[in-house]
């Protein structure tokens, strides 16, 4: 049976950060994921924002980790391969009485130590963001806020972790675990078993189930749904900064997000989900998104909508729950990671490492740890001369498979070789099928490339694992 120093359950953004952090040390680490690919849960469907550090008070764990995490992204962006940009965040007030709340956020930001945060007049707001509703009365500007592609971030973290020795086990759905001497013996639904001295529970929506399976604390993760619309990059009303409304008690409201890849995302809603598998979108919720987003940016048009989707927040109380288990030994709980979880995640990696150390895990730095991963060149980002050079090195860069997002065959092959063997995995890695035609033109080509590269048969191709088979027969 395989034996590890640490087993991390759940390969979302938290698990991936913990795994990469631990890969710096002389440890045998396993990253366990129940899905066919990493980042397929909450980390896939969220706003993709590096927050500004003013929404929560520094007395909370989530604010501390958010502030710390936000500062780590420049370095991560340099070392890893994910799109990231500090485009700045605006909070827009549409009524005079909302300015009081803006001021509160500003003061909180200042107290939190946010650099460059400023209060803005109407004029300043419109100068910073001309697409804003001209009725804006003022707002807040946090220039350090940013945008990134969350799944690409996770993919890259996992690639880095793997490169530095972490064992990634997908389709490993933890069913039970029991203590066996100094070890946890962890059993997957598939019957596979491993042993690990320490366990990190970063199972997101399913952290409660895992905690119970490990005989640790009993708590309940409540799935809270956030629905989004994705708009075409050609939309006329594309803002250049993230626009927040004035937050309410329950949520940060419907945002207008210029994604780092040039499309526009609007959402999320905040409504109870009927279960942890409830990813359905709802007509009324979607109408609410359009309505609310248009209050901020009136030029947004439903004609530019290319898709809608829903993500589930793993809600548990008001703050993050990151702590050593008080009931089970050698277990660290990483649960209730809602917004700003993505922003905080690099700091969560550090924090969990420290908790493990306190619990007795010996950390010896590796002399040969390599923080860098290969940056896969993207045809979309290359100017004509750069693309010419790429094609000379690899002709597959000259074969544009996805016309809408300009993705070459070379990038699809890179995705497959990085272990993404489903249509969705390839989509999140490359953006192929993510544009205005939503795969109408390129799906058949991706299927062919997938079959060619992996030797998979047509009836093994899935959208995202499980029973999500794409083809049901051959003529």
């Amino acid at each position, binding site marked *: 049976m395989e034996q590890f120093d640490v087993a991390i359950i759940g390969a979302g953004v938290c698990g991936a950060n913990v795994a990469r952090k631990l890969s710096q040390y002389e440890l045998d680490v396993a990253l366990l994921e129940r899905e066919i690919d990493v980042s397929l849960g909450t980390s896939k469907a969220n706003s993709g924002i590096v927050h500004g550090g003013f929404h929560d008070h520094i007395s909370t764990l989530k604010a501390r980790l958010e502030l710390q995490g936000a500062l780590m992204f420049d370095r991560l962006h340099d070392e890893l391969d994910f799109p990231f940009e500090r485009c700045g965040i605006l909070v827009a007030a549409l009524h005079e009485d909302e300015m009081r709340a803006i001021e509160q956020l500003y003061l909180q930001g200042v107290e939190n130590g946010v650099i460059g945060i400023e209060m803005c007049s109407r004029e300043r707001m419109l100068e910073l963001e001309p697409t804003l509703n001209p009725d804006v009365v003022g707002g807040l500007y946090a220039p350090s806020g940013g945008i990134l592609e969350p799944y690409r971030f996770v993919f890259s973290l996992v690639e880095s972790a793997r490169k530095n020795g972490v064992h990634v086990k997908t389709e490993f759905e933890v069913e039970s675990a029991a203590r066996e001497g100094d070890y946890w013996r962890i059993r997957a639904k598939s019957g596979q078993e491993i042993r690990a001295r320490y366990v990190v529970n970063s199972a997101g929506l399913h952290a409660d189930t895992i905690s119970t399976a490990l005989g640790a604390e009993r708590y309940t993760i409540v799935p809270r749904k956030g629905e989004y619309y994705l708009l075409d990059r050609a939309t006329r009303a594309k803002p250049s900064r993230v626009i927040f409304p004035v937050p309410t008690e329950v949520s940060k409201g419907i945002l207008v997000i210029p994604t780092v890849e040039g499309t526009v995302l609007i959402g999320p809603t905040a409504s109870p989900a009927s279960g942890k598998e409830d990813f359905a979108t709802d007509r009324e919720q979607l109408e609410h998104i359009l309505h609310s987003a248009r209050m901020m940016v009136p030029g947004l048009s439903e004609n530019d909508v290319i898709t809608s989707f829903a993500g589930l927040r793993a809600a548990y109380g008001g703050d993050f729950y990151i702590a050593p288990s008080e009931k089970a030994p050698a277990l660290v709980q990483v649960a209730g990671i809602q917004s700003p979880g993505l922003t905080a995640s690099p700091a969560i990696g550090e924090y969990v490492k420290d908790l493990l150390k306190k619990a007795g895990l010996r950390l010896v730095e590796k002399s040969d740890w390599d923080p860098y991963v290969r940056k896969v060149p993207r045809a979309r980002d290359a100017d004509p001369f750069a693309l010419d050079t790429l094609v000379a090195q690899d002709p597959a860069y000259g074969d544009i498979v996805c016309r809408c997002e300009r993705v070459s065959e070379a990038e699809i092959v890179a995705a497959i070789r990085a272990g993404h063997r489903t249509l969705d995995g390839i989509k999140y890695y490359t953006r192929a099928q993510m544009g205005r035609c939503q795969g109408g033109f390129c799906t058949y080509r991706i*299927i*062919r*490339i997938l*079959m*060619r590269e992996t030797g998979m048969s047509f009836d093994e191709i899935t959208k995202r694992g499980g029973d999500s088979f794409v083809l049901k027969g051959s*003529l």
Partner: protein
Amino acid sequence: MRELICITCPMGCHLAVDTDARGEMKVTGNRCLRGEQYAREEIFNPKRVVTFTCAAVLPDGGTPGPESNLPRRVPVRTTGAFPKERIPELLGALKGMTVRLPAVRGSVVLKKALDTEVDVIVARGIAPE
């Protein structure tokens, strides 16, 4: 009176078929003579052009795999309208058939299909590189 829509061409004429006092069939609403012919056929012996595909087979006997840019299927069609009630039978016959590449457009796959006057021919020329 029976109403029909002519499907001979994409114009889609709305036809009215009537029988006059002498029992002769009378067609109105057609914009060309083919409409009248269609109405007669549709009532007494409905027929359809059948289009389908057969498996492509490489010159060496293999089938085009995902590494090749060749299609796995070769389109075929009937040379004329085929009796409607016998279409399932025809499809059954075509299902197991293959076309060896290079496929020549117009070449006959099935001569006098199911003893009708209609042939099934290759509808796309495909030349492996």
